């Protein structure tokens, strides 16, 4: 057997790489003579195999899902204060930046057709270095069939796990860890997938798995579930009966036929029996009275499309009806549907949703999962990794390494990949620290971080996708320039550019690929792609320089602030904060200015600001509150940019709060994103400022000023996924004021976030399209002070 490795010529996204398998038998029969030549892009699909361990495999009727745990070596930028002891007293920079290697944990999940199983196993065997691996967990119907093959090829012992146990384990895992995992299907809407906010409590729920048959499972707790029923009329019935009726062999082709058919030619409707609606019972004339009722005649031919459609309705309705009966009996209102009958098929999601709505009269909701196809593999993996305690950590979807949800509807996606020959991938990164809700959220179950849903808003979607496309060249250049000593920086930057470009094109076609499309998800995806090509912090040098410059101005700014009377000072502080916020390399309008005008400074920024009244202006209320109310107990501040923003904008503001008796928790990102200040940078900056300023110094010492990390590496802010330590501190210190600064955190996200305490959201709008949308011009100011209503 030979494996031909090629890079993909079209430079398409990884998930779409085609495998050239001559004579590969699609549609699930995974035995017989297979042609084993295959093109696998090297390292593109089964990635990080060198360190891979804890293999798990889920072999279904037609698709195999492979899972493993691996570690990824990443370059990370570390900041470190210079040694104070020696000769390095006079530095241009306030600290040094070093690039180090860091190892992080990642989960890999790959889905491919059973046809390729042998080739894939060989590939894995050839690349597997880790010798401690002795066992592979296996689940799915095919685990029995392929047991010997796996053991022979991989030399690993196959350890079988119960299908349903794995499915449920996997389901619980994604429900807890992946934002926007769950969606409802809406027909006839621009974007048919309506994603749900993750609910803190996922139990109890009903899982209806539609494979060849139907299993209905009630899940009450992490490890407590019960098979409460099932039905033999499932995906296998659609496929088998469909193949008999239409002579169409493949499942996907049957669905395509169905989507083109008219069931009314085959089904007997209520109106065919009654001549109209059945009034006494309120049954509409269009309801199906008898599936295939019109085909009870020998002398008529029916079209394949019509029969397939009728069959689809019959099966979907039947499953929906039974699911509702079980939901009612067990008093449940959430039903997750999965199995190959559902898997990404708009046609079946539509008919199932219709059926659930009809039979439950809207009381039960049909829900679907983005990673439904992976549940079994995830569960089997978790079973095998119990000693690593994966459930103890928080995990995040890696947008760079995941293919995203692919619609299989040809109408929905013109550039669709046929399902055969497709490799689909899903990667999750282990987060360093567990993430929790901000305790100050008014209602965590309804909190939505993002202000605009780009899946919904086609105009905004087009604008932002174009905006990110246009900025991409500059971002790639900056990434390459940030590593002048690296010989392959330019090449990597190009790869990054290609990858992110492809993601943007995917999102143009399928905005729902990674959950609700938002400016935040676009930004996060870009960060993930940069990391993927080892550009952990392209702005580290710029941030270093700007922090240096700003630190030098700190004392001057403080002196001029101190010379003002109280009232003038309050406005100056706010203006300073806003002017600082102009320094945003993430905004194209600003980065253009910063690239060209090297002298652009704090004063220039102030002059750019909109005059009061601002676009959103509750400054007077804020001032009244400061003047008349007691000082706040503790303020939580989410900072934005490095340099002038944090040093000349935020710190003077912090200093004033401290002086008036308010404690301050300053929260910065755990990892780098654009030129946002990171937690480790904030520590050094604070230390430097403390050396110049006694107020800051004593506050740090007395722990009235606390620096914490957010747990995030995003330019935006999701208050439902914050570092657990931060949340504990917020509770401990009885925080009663939250200040959110910057476009990413206060406008793209959290603009409408409702909190239990007072909040201040301020930002300068550095994008003319967005400013216009909000009714203003570029450099308009948002100053939104809110007091929760009782």
């Amino acid at each position, binding site marked *: 057997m030979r494996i031909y490795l090629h890079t993909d010529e079209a430079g398409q996204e990884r998930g779409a790489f085609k495998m050239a398998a001559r004579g590969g038998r699609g549609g699930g029969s995974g035995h017989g003579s297979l042609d084993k030549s295959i093109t696998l892009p090297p390292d593109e699909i089964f990635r990080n195999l060198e360190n891979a361990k804890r293999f798990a495999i889920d072999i279904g009727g037609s698709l195999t899902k492979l899972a493993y745990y691996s570690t990824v070596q990443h370059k990370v930028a570390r900041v470190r204060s210079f040694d104070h002891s020696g000769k390095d007293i006079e530095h241009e920079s306030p600290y040094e930046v070093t690039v180090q290697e860091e190892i992080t944990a990642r989960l890999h999940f790959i889905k491919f057709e059973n046809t390729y199983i042998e080739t894939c196993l060989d590939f894995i065997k050839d690349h597997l270095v880790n010798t401690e691996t002795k066992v592979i967990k296996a689940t799915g119907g095919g685990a029995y069939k392929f047991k010997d093959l796996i053991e022979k090829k991989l030399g690993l012992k196959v350890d079988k796990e119960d299908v349903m146990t794995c499915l449920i384990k996997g389901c619980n895992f994604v429900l807890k860890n992946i934002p926007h995992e769950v969606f409802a299907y809406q027909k006839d809407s621009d974007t048919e997938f309506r994603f749900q906010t993750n609910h803190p409590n996922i139990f109890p729920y009903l899982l209806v798995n539609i494979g060849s048959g139907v299993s209905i499972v009630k899940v009450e707790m992490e490890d407590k579930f019960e098979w409460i029923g099932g039905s033999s009329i499932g*995906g296998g019935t659609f496929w088998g009966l469909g193949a008999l009726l239409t002579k169409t062999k493949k499942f996907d082709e049957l669905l395509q036929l169905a989507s083109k058919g008219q069931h009314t030619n085959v089904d007997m409707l209520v109106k065919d029996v009654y001549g109209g609606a059945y009034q006494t019972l309120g049954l509409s004339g269009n309801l199906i009275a008898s*599936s295939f009722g019109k085909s009870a005649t020998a002398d008529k031919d029916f079209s394949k499309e019509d029969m397939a459609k009728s069959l689809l309705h019959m099966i979907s309705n039947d499953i929906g*009806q039974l699911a509702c*009966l079980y939901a009612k009996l067990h008093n449940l209102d959430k039903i997750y549907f999965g199995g190959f009958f559902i898997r990404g098929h708009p046609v079946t999601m539509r008919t199932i949703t219709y059926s659930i709505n009809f039979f439950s009269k809207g009381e039960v909701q049909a829900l679907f999962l983005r990673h439904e196809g992976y549940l079994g593999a995830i569960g089997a993996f978790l079973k095998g990794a119990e000693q690593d305690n994966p459930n103890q950590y928080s995990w995040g979807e890696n947008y760079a390494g995941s293919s995203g949800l692919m619609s299989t509807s040809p109408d929905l996606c013109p550039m669709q990949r046929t399902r055969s020959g497709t490799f689909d991938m899903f990667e999750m990164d282990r987060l360093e620290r567990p993430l929790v809700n901000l305790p100050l959220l008014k209602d965590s179950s309804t909190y939505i971080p993002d202000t605009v849903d780009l899946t919904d808003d086609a105009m905004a979607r087009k604008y932002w996708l174009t905006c990110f496309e246009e900025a991409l060249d500059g971002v790639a250049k900056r990434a390459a320039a940030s590593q002048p000593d690296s010989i392959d920086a330019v090449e990597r930057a190009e790869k990054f550019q290609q990858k992110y470009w492809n993601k943007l094109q995917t999102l143009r076609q399928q905005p729902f690929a990674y959950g609700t499309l938002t400016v935040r998800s676009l930004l996060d995806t870009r960060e993930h792609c940069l990391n993927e090509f080892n550009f952990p912090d392209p702005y580290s040098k710029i941030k270093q320089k700007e922090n240096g410059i700003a630190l030098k101005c700190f004392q001057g700014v403080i002196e001029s602030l101190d010379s003002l009377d109280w009232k003038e000072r309050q406005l100056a502080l706010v203006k300073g904060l806003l002017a600082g916020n102009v320094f945003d390399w993430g905004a194209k309008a600003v980065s253009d200015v910063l690239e060209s005008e090297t002298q652009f400074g704090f004063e220039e920024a102030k002059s750019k600001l909109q005059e009061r009244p601002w676009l959103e202006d509750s400054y007077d209320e804020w001032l009244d509150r400061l003047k008349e109310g007691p000082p706040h107990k503790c303020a939580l501040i989410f900072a934005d940019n490095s340099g002038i923003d944090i040093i000349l904008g935020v710190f003077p503001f912090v200093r004033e709060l401290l002086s008036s008796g308010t404690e301050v928790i300053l929260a910065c990102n755990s990892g780098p994103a654009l030129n946002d200040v990171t937690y480790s940078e904030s520590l050094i900056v604070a230390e430097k400022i403390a050396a110049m300023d006694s107020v800051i110094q004593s506050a740090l010492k007395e722990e009235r000023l606390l620096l914490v990390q957010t747990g995030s590496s995003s330019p935006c802010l999701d208050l439902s996924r914050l570092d657990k330590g931060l949340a504990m501190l917020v509770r401990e210190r009885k925080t009663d004021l939250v200040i959110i600064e910057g476009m990413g955190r206060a406008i793209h996200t959290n603009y409408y976030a409702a909190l239990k305490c007072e909040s201040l959201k301020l930002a300068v709008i550095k994008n003319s399209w967005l400013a216009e949308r909000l009714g203003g011009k570029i450099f308009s100011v948002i100053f939104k002070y809110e007091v929760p209503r009782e």
Partner: protein
Amino acid sequence: HRLVRGEKGDEFFPWFGLDIGGTLVKLVYFEPKDITAEEEEEEVENLKSIRKYLTSNVAYGSTGIRDVHLELKDLTLCGRKGNLHFIRFPTHDMPAFIQMGSEKHFSSLHTTLCATGGGAYKFEQDFRTMGDLQLQKLDELDCLIKGVLYIDSVGFNGHSECYYFENPTDSEKCEKLPFNLENPYPLLLVNIGSGVSILAVYSKDNYKRVTGTSLGGGTFFGLCCLLTGCSTFEEALEMASRGDSTKVDKLVRDIYGGDYERFGLPGWAVASSFGNMVSKEKRESVSKEDLARATLITITNNIGSIARMCALNENINRVVFVGNFLRINTISMRLLAYALNYWSKGQLKALFLEHEVNLLFNLFYSFKVQTPTVT
């Protein structure tokens, strides 16, 4: 010549009841056996010829059939003694039936034609314009329930109308035994015609339609026509009786090698109806009989499953299956009996009736007979 009426003199002969379903029209006809010579002489020619035609034939035209085995003998109705005949023909022959009524001047007999089923609505206009006949439409659910309650009190030629199966899966031991419906409430009534309606009956006036399913007799017959090329329900059933559904269906043991103990699923249970037909080789190796059998088993199991869930939700443990789908269909009746008993661990009992009970009520209703109260 004068028209003959019942004892109370409130209804003229002939006495008919009609149930016009989606696939079949069911007709009951009361043949008076106590006609006096005087009456005979006075009987109009029309009436006489209708009576002769119906009682001396067992088939009418190419599609009409009289179910002789269902005939109720020596029934007293409104003071008249006679036999009750059950006749059926396909709904698509309805226009021809109306035409015949018109040709035989049915309207001159001044009889009230009571009809139930969807066709009572659909064909009402045709009856009026083509046949000059006024239909008295009766609600089909009403007819159904009252018919069930009534028939049991009448009895079937001396036997019990309601019965059940003891040992339904064992062809040796399987026994059809009478069931006494003296205290019928609450009961779940599953009417399997072309489609299926499920009613929960709490008392003679208190009932509701719980749900329905489109997977009914019409689906069985329709799919059989497409899969086997058969042309009658009887043919479809006959093929099914000779087939083996386990060649077509994927069973639990086909997947797990035996029982799936984790969930307490027996190996013989069907995991996926038609699941084996995904494979080309297996599609080519099954017979038409196997396909007919699998279709029958699929539809029947599904009805049983939905009925069982409704019974659980409504907290009812007696389920009465009626409807034309079960006519001469012992396979389905025994399967329903078995499945209901097995999956409910003996909590639910499947009951069956000898007749199309809604029709009977329909007929009795036309005499404005008080609904018999069952004691």
